[in-house]
């Protein structure tokens, strides 16, 4: 075990996979000389050289295309788009090419690639660097979508993402990069599609992922003092989705909340709400609560950035509502 930041845990996973498999390489804007602007890839250029750590021109469309094409030709690219906001230049390659090659070819051409992007709110960045697009990717059959919340998960999931034979979108929350945690040394992987109970509880389940796991954990601490025990279930992947884990937890607690940071409407949470109420309707003691970000953009002013994303107090209040809900009015 070593204490690492979330960012460094990702960098370490990639480096270990690059040592293991010569087909794995990294490309993106400023990933080599700069080691990526969040220092995630620091040291990789020195260790692996320019052929395997490729600074690209500033051209997202060809970055994604080159990743997809090289994967179709047998490599395992780990490509970076500096912010998820800029994947919008190259989504044909993801939506129509990467995600469909296995299908269109009926099992002849696959696309084993990882597309890494920071995403999410951050003060002082403004609306062009703070989109959260997981719902877009999760909606595309053929893509896998991973959103780690902790350094250990980030490492274990990145290893699996690189080894996966399908295109994986790996979404890193920019506000987590410098958070720290214990990370297992050496070979360590976490299968894609397994949720993780980050805190056990009996009174309600908070289904969450990425940065909201931490919001949920803090809210759970508040609630504990009030005698409410919240279970915090970190999905870790939206696709594959660990339906079993969601249902097992809510079957136990009989109350659920889904929590995410993206603009609330048509976000990923609706999928989880649908699953829970469909499968556990008779057991639910209250309607499934959904908390997302405000349905707006992330503003530049720090107070408005904070106001747009779910807060600990908001989660705690919703939990109290849930526990206090009476099935009959």
């Amino acid at each position, binding site marked *: 075990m070593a204490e690492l930041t979330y960012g460094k845990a990702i960098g370490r996973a990639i480096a270990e996979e690059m040592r293991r498999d010569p087909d794995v390489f990294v490309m993106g804007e400023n990933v080599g000389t700069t080691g990526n602007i969040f220092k995630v890839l620091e040291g990789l250029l020195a260790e692996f050289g320019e052929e395997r750590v490729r600074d690209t021109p500033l051209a997202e469309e*060809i970055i994604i295309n080159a990743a997809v094409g090289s994967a179709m030709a047998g490599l395992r690219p780990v490509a970076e788009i500096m912010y998820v906001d800029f994947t919008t230049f190259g989504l044909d390659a993801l939506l129509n090419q990467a995600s469909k090659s296995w299908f269109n070819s009926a099992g002849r051409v696959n696309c084993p690639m990882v597309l890494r992007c920071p995403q999410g709110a951050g003060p002082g960045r403004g609306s062009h660097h703070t989109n959260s697009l997981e719902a877009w990717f999760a909606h595309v059959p053929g893509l896998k979508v991973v959103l780690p919340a902790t350094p250990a998960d980030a490492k274990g999931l990145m290893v699996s993402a690189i080894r996966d034979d399908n295109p994986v979108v790996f979404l890193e929350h920019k506000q987590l990069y410098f958070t720290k945690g214990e990370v297992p040394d050496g070979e360590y992987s976490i299968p894609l599609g397994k949720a993780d109970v980050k805190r056990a509880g009996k009174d309600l389940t908070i289904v969450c992922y990425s940065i909201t796991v931490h919001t949920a954990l803090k809210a759970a601490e508040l609630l504990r003092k009030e005698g409410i025990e919240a279970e915090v279930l970190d999905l870790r992947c939206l696709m594959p989705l660990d339906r079993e884990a969601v249902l097992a937890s809510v079957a136990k607690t009989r109350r659920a909340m889904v929590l995410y940071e993206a603009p609330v409407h048509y976000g990923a949470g609706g999928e989880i709400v649908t699953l829970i109420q469909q499968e556990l309707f008779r057991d639910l003691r209250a309607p499934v609560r959904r908390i997302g970000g405000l349905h707006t953009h992330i503003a530049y002013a720090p107070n408005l950035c904070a106001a747009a994303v779910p807060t600990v107090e908001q989660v705690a209040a919703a939990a109290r509502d849930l526990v206090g809900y009476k099935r009959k009015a």
Partner: protein
Amino acid sequence: MEDAKLLRQYEVMLRERYFVLEQCTQNAKGKIHGYLHCYTGEEAIAAGICADLTPKDTVFSTHRAEGHLVSMGARFDRMMAESFGRVDGYGKGLGGVMHMSVPEIGLVHSNGVVGGGIGLAVGAALAHRYRKDGRVAVAFFGDGASSHGVLYEGMNLASVWKLPVIFVLENNGFAISSPASKMISVADVARRADGFSLPGITVDGNDLVAVYEAASAAIRRARTGEGPTFLECKTYRTRGHNEGDPQWYYRTREEVKDWEQNRDPVKRCKALLISKGLLTEEKDKAMIDAIKKELAEAVAFADASLYPGEEYLEKYVWKEQ
């Protein structure tokens, strides 16, 4: 171009031509479900470009894919089955007529997205360069597609990384009804390559030998690490954009007839072969007959093949680990 290769590639052109015409026949019977975009009139390009490629190279094709497929060596029967949407097709009927992938012959991907293969070919070329395997990636695309930004991003990347990719523009003068002369700000798109520091060459795409010579040099350059080449092949499609295109509102019958009668690549190549004493009418007829026989078998094969089962719908979404 050596004689043997010239004759072989003439046969490839015949195979392209007759395969597509047979698709038209089958389409008229309602057996092809999708848009059928015929390569008729453009056969010399695929035959010339692919002559020196091998199954280890990586070719990315377009919506007008059959010429490329045939030239790389795809089987009539499986292509026909795929265009019928049947389970014995290359894509088991999932992909269909615009989306055939035959990686075992080097044809990685054909594409319903115009311009969709250009960036992928650059990526495949990156893989070749990364592995130093001496292979070449080829992107076919049309004049319409040449307005897509990814081409320029791709040329820049291929140029700075010296990637073994050949950008093959099949300039047939139209994107559906839109004439290249109104849509493209330069007469020879190949001129744009200059600004990206790669060779840009324009050839008569209906002249098999001209296409071949240019392609052969480009392939050599790519294999020896000298980087990308842009090859513009001027041509003309003599059938509608797709079968059923009510084309006479954007071009005249006379124009089409002129191309068919005076510039047809198959006819021109045949005349050349005969003039060189490499072909006789009888030999030509024998080749065509053999192709027609193979086509009849392909149609029978496709007809006998079933539609795919519904289980495939979810089976091929993700590759199992």
